[in-house]
Every structure is written in C-alpha cells, then in structure tokens.
C-alpha cells in the first residue's frame, strides 16, 4: 500500500529522475529525509540534488526563484505551511509577479505541509490555500487523494508557473492506495468524488474525507449527495461546480480554512453570480471557526469541520 506521504516522495523521485533541472531545497530534507520523511533517501539516490537549507524561509524561496530564472525547476519544502509566512514576501511579491512584470516565468514548487492534526496548535495547523490564491500569479493545489498527491506534484514540477502545493498532513499516513496512476485529470480540473442528485458539496483537501463520511451517513436516510473535489483551488474549476449545482440545485461548501475570504466564500460568490438561477435555496458553507487553530484536541475537533457538522449542515440545506 502506498500512503499519501509516500506518493509525495515518489513524485519527487520521479521528477528528479526524469528532469535534470529539478533539485530539492529545504530544512532537514537531506540525509534526514525531512520532518515528515517526504524526501527520505532522495539525497542518497540523487547526490548533489537534495540540499539542507539553513533556517531561512525567505532565503529558501528566494534561492528557488533565482534558480528558476536560470532554468532550473526547484522544489522547496517548508517544514510546515505555517512557516511559509516567513518566506511570504518572496512568494507573493517576487515569484508571483515575475512573469507579469518581465515575461519570464517562475517555475518553482513550494510544498506546504498543511492543515490540522490533533495537538498541532496555532502554528503547525494552518490551511493557507486562500491566502496564496488571493495573489495573482500563483497556482494553488490541494490534493485530497494519494493518486492526486502523486500526479499533481509531478505535473506541478512541469508547470511553468509558481505552484503552491498544499499537501495535507492529516492525510499523510492514513490515506493509502494500491497503486499510483501514470496520468490523471489535468491541473485545474475538479473531480466528482461522488455523484448524487439532492445536493452538491464542494470541498478540497482533508475535508473531502469528512464530507465523504457525512454523505455516507446521509445516504442511510435516502439522500444522494454529489461531492466535487476541487483538487486545485487556483485555477478554480467553476464549470464543474456549476454543472453539479445545475443537477442538484443545492450547494454546501466545506473547507478547513478560516471563513473570511476563503475558498468557500469564493465558490459561493461564483455560483451566486454566475449560477444564481440554478440554486433552489441559499447556498451554505462549513468552515473552521474564526479563531487561531487551538492546540487541545477537544477544542481542535470542534474548531474544524467534521463529518457530523457537515452532515448537520447538509440536513439543514436539504430541508430548506
């Protein structure tokens, strides 16, 4: 069985093996194999192409940008997504603007171990996809399956634009697949994770699995709910979302992010303005609570959406 984490490692291995321009840079990613072991053995397998960086996120991203301008394809690892704010300036002001300002693209991949886990607390749990998606010039990916973690990371390396790769820590070890596909949907395409006719749930990342559990529970009551896994939050596949809402007439958006300006807000804004007539009732959303992510597991499990809060919201949507 291949875990989500192993898929990420294998995608980097394949990128290193197939493209001599690829190199890896990040804290503790060399011999140690990274804080989560996403680069385990890669420094041995690819000598001179996997480098331990100093504790300097600004420099890590800045180095990647310079290398990309010179024709390389760097993949950088932030130890936790939360620490990417220390490299925020380079990501949003440099990598994201380069093509627009100069016509020269900036093909870097920034891997962000994202999202909450029990006991993670305020600085090791954040979901930052909306923050990065806000800035023009970045591609923001949120794989929710082992297969997507693998194919999307490999595809991201081939992309000419800077990619923020939000890999979810909660999925690292518990999500498993028998084998890995060679190809999959292109980046920017959403996927129907479940088909149904009564309502549409639009979600991404770890919340796909909470949503699947909620939908399984609701199926016992005879509700058939469709789930759209966005896969990529920027670009956002509005067509797939609208097509689903056209079938169901009801929309529930679910995300582990904070609500303000998040992916749920964006999806609801798009459906409301471009597909208002498709909606039978007002769209709803379930997000994390609007506070920092709490450390205590009992608080954390209420802070983030779960199968039961998603199911409860879906029931209200179905009955309205």
């Amino acid at each position, binding site marked *: 069985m291949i875990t989500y984490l192993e898929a990420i490692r294998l995608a980097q291995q394949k990128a290193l093996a197939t493209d001599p321009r690829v190199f890896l840079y990040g*804290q*503790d990613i*060399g*011999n*140690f194999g990274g*804080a989560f072991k996403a680069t385990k053995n890669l420094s041995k397998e690819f000598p001179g192409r996997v480098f*331990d*960086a*100093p*504790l*300097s*996120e*600004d*420099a890590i991203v800045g180095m990647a940008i310079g290398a990309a301008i010179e024709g390389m394809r760097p993949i950088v690892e932030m*130890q*936790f997504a*939360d*620490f990417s*704010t*220390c490299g925020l300036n380079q990501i949003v002001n440099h990598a994201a603007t380069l093509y627009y300002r100069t016509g020269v693209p900036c093909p870097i991949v920034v891997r962000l171990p994202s999202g909450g886990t*029990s*006991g*993670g*607390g*305020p*600085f*090791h749990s954040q979901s930052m996809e909306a923050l990065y998606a806000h800035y023009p010039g970045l591609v923001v990916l949120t794989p929710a399956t082992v297969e997507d973690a693998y194919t999307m990371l490999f595809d991201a390396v081939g992309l000419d634009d800077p990619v923020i790769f939000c890999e979810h820590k909660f999925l690292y070890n518990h999500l498993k697949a028998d084998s890995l596909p060679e190809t999959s949907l292109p980046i920017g395409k959403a996927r129907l994770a479940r088909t149904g006719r009564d309502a549409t749930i639009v979600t991404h990342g770890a919340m796909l699995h909470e949503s699947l559990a909620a939908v399984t529970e609701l199926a016992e009551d005879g509700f058939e709910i469709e789930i759209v896994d966005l896969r990529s939050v920027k670009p956002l596949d509005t067509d797939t979302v609208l097509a689903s809402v056209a079938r169901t007439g009801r929309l529930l958006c679910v995300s582990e992010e904070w*609500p303000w300006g998040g992916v*749920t807000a964006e999806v609801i804004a798009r459906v409301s303005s471009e597909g208002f007539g498709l909606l039978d009732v007002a769209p*709803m*959303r*379930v*997000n994390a*609570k*609007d*506070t*920092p992510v*709490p*450390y*205590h*597991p*009992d*608080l954390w*499990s*209420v*802070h983030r*959406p779960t199968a039961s*809060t998603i199911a409860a*919201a879906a029931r209200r949507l179905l009955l309205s």
Partner: protein
Amino acid sequence: MPKTSAAVTQADYIKAYRIMLLSRVLEEKLASLYRAGMIKGGVFLGRGQEALSVSVGTHLHRGDIFAPLIRDQAGRLAFGDTVLDTLRTYLGSQLGSMRGRDGNIHRGRPRDGYYAMISHLGAMIPAVSGALFARRLKGESGVVGATCIGDGGTSTGAFHEGLNAAAVEKLPLIVVVANNQYAYSTPNSRQYACEDLLDKAAGYGVTGHKADGTNLLDCLQTLRLAVRNAREGGGPQLVVADLLRLVGHGEHDDGQYVDPKLKASPLGGDCLALAEHHILEQGWATAEEHAAWRREVESEVNSTADRVRREPTPDPEEDDWAALSCPEYREHYATS
C-alpha cells in the same frame, strides 16, 4: 569587564542548581508522560541546556521581560513559572495559563513579563525589543529583556532585523544563543559559515559574550555580566553558549544523526551532572543532602502531575471562540 567581576556565590550556585534539578526531573516526567500517550501535542526538552537557561532566568527581576524558547524549562522556572502551570499546559488542563488554546512550550503570561513564544523562530527578538522600547517611552529605567534562540534561529530574517533594530535603539536586550550544534537534524556546518556565532555581535555593533554552556559557573558569570551591562545602558548583549543538545529534537526523534564525536567531546558534557559533581567536590552538600533535594523535587513533580490529571479539560461548549478582545467587533455570520 572580566567575567570574574560578576561574583557568583555558593548560594547563587546552589539556588541555580536546584532549579536545574527541578527542571530535569520535570522534563523526565514529561518524557514519560509523552511515552504513555498522555501529553497533548509535542514535547521538546532542554536536557543539557539547563545551566544556560537557568542563568538567564535567574538574573532577571520582577518587572523585566523574558521570552524563553523551546528548551528553556529551567529559565522559565527561574523566572517564576511553576511546575503546576507547566504540567497543566502539557496535560491539557483547562486551568492552565493557555486554557488549552495553545500548548506546552508556547505558554506564557505576557502581563507578568513572561512572553508566550510563537513557533516562528526569531520572532520574539523584535517583540522583546518593542517591549523595551515601550518601557523607555513610558519613562521606566533599569529594566532589561532577555530572549533565547538556537543556532538555527540565528539564520532567520527576524533575528537579523530584530538585533539590528535593537542595536540602533541601544535597547537593554539580551539575546542568548544556545549553540547546541544542531537545528533539528541540520548541523552547524549547514547553518552558518562564520567562524563563531559570536562574530555576529561585531556585525550588529552589540557586545558579545561567549560561555561554556556545560559549565554552570561560567553561564552564571556570563549572564550576570551581560544582564548588568544591559541594565546599565550598555545596549544589546549577544551571548553565545556552546553546548550539545542531549536529546532528540523532540521526543518523537531519536537524534541518531548526532555525530558521536560531538557526544564524546567536552561539548557533550551534561551540565547537570557536572554541576552536581562540583557541588559535592566543593563540599557544598553531601551526597545524602543531594539525594534529598532530588527526592523533594520528584515528589513535587509526581504529586502535581497526579493532581493535574484530575483537573477538567477545556470544554468546547464553554469556550467563547473569540479571537478579538472587543466583543462589539466579533462577527456573527453563518459558516456552519
């Protein structure tokens, strides 16, 4: 000013040592609770760094500012943190200072000058500088602020910007670098290229001090001097103490990447064992007295842990889930 001008008495030494011992015993308890699956979140220990850490906390007064880092249990206790609040935070008691919202090494009580670190390394340096700046603006004098950082943390932008800004303002800041040779798995050879981290002091125009982090007397003397300099208007002080992290990065890590040569070198000495040896050798305490000190702290730690385990955990129903202090600006809108 030579370090020896900072006279450290037998009583100072023993007081510091007993805090180190308490810290060590408390951390051993945390490690065993962690292995038993009873700790919420991670456990990062300061084994081998107690002499340095206690020397920081013990030279600060009430009214000073202290922003400890992840390996500063000893300094925290010296500054006034308690076994009770430490265990409450690690065991997730609702009665802890962080109320379950943040944990463990991130605990603090800013109103008491005991700042609560964020994880992002380096960030506390400018924050403590700002606190000292405010004290100056408010007309307070004689106050100092200290914050600790690792060799890895010296590579952050915040370290550079913070130390530079503090130097420009000539603030009474003491930055203490625990140069424990590794940042997680990363050895110093991949962290910086200067001969010695102390070289950075000259670059920022601040006074530098070097200490042997395994030697309690040297740490006490160095910090006494650095704190006095800062208190007397000498501007920021950079203390670099060389030592070795004697545990994994966290309790999840076995630290097998640590070079055995370093472990066998003087850097790998255990400051607690060395200080104990010094006390016995000097005849400042007998082996029986020392054993009694240990029993005393073990019983305090064990009984406190038993008490805390019976305390309530945070209740999500009771939490107000408010990130803003002004109730009138809290938003109410449907997100679930």
